């Protein structure tokens, strides 16, 4: 379970997160929607400690993320994250991209790491690309590789930060299909997205971010069809 309690974060004078409360249960798919600058991506980065917070508490299965005593490297093994910019390691082949952390972080043998990597890469449809360098892949393929790289660590949670926003429109589908597949397999996911139809289809709950807070949260049908807040209604109207 991921528990977020009264989280505040500021960049200088800018109050990016202004008291966020949220719990995400095991097996749940939660989408975060909202205008740009509403704090949803920053919230995601705080969950695995890539960003610090000024106030409040985030715990992942009882481990406090921003406590000085927490071994973040250890915690991050259990939380996979995929970014908007896919961040392939350009100097490593597709296979090496996936095996690196398996070998250096989880200390697996070369054979074991490669077996896991091949399995994960096949899962996202990149079985044929093992020895290719990322520069030879399309954006969608690079993004699927990034997903395989995160999944190879067998995380308990997956965070997706606008993973289709930097892709050409015709490549969005293949990445969303991969996410759909994961949600069907029961992966716990927090998805920051602008793909509203997708969010509606896969999410158990939708959280609407507005001015650094969760303005409204609920089942997809409620958020999209019967929002209770006026800001939610106007956002939903503007994007659908």
């Amino acid at each position: 379970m991921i528990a977020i309690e009264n989280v505040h974060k500021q960049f200088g004078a800018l109050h990016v997160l202004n008291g966020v409360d949220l719990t995400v249960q095991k097996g749940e798919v939660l989408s975060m929607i909202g205008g740009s600058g509403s704090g949803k991506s920053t919230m995601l980065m705080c969950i695995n400690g890539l960003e610090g917070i000024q106030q409040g508490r985030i715990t992942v299965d009882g481990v406090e993320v921003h406590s000085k005593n927490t071994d973040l490297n250890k915690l991050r093994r259990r939380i996979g994250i995929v970014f908007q910019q896919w961040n392939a390691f350009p100097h490593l082949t597709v296979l090496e991209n996936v095996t690196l952390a398996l070998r250096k972080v989880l200390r697996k043998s070369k054979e074991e790491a490669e077996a896991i990597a091949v399995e994960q890469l096949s899962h996202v449809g990149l079985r044929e690309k093992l020895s290719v360098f990322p520069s030879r892949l399309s954006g969608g393929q690079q993004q699927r590789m990034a997903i395989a790289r995160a999944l190879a660590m067998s995380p308990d949670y997956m965070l997706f930060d606008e993973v289709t926003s930097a892709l050409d429109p015709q490549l969005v589908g293949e990445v969303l299909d991969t996410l759909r597949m994961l949600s069907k397999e029961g992966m716990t996911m927090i998805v920051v997205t602008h793909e509203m139809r997708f969010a509606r289809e896969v999410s158990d709950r939708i959280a609407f971010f507005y001015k650094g807070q969760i303005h409204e949260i609920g089942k997809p049908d409620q958020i999209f069809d019967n929002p209770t807040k006026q800001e939610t209604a106007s956002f939903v109207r503007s994007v659908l």
Partner: protein
Amino acid sequence: MDYHFQWRPVLRSLPDMLWGALVTIEIAGLAMLLGTVLAIFLALGKRSGKKYLSWPADVWIETARNTPALFQIYMLYFGLGSLGLQVGSYAALLFGITFNNAGYLAETFRGGFLAVPETQTRAARSLGMGTVQTMWHIVIPQMLRAVFHAMTNQMVWSILMSSLGIIVGLTTDLTGVTQKLNVVTYRTFEYFFVAACLYYIISKAFTLSARIVAWRLFRY
């Protein structure tokens, strides 16, 4: 013109000069290796934003880049000597060039680090990799690619600069051997002409092999 070129004695002592060339390559290679390692630390020190790390790095880099290499070698040989720390001429030359290399390369690397996007570090850290692992496996390999050609230049520079060993009395490298033969025979032009050719061949051979290495290494 009453000077008669005599090439025969030079050709006879060519094996000695080739041995000298080996020493030159050894010094330049070692100075490059040590200089690279030190430069990475200097560049990281400067990047760290911590005064006690960036300040010594700054002093090193500024001195190495803005004073003559010849003085730097002199300082190591005579300066340390007058402080009671006797350094041989080989060591003085090696450390002098290392000092100089490190200063120049540190600036090169600083630029190289900037060429590696911050998002690469984020991606590596998010997979649970530590700071050192991220540096070693993700940042440094990409940084080295960005600075590879600048490093090749520095290596050629240090091959040529190693001839300064003559000022601290080194007699075993290519210049030292040549000078030793010169004072015995007074065939100055012939000896130094051949030595210059050897320096040219070493530098060129290095540049070409570096190009092959780059082609093999940077397949991406």
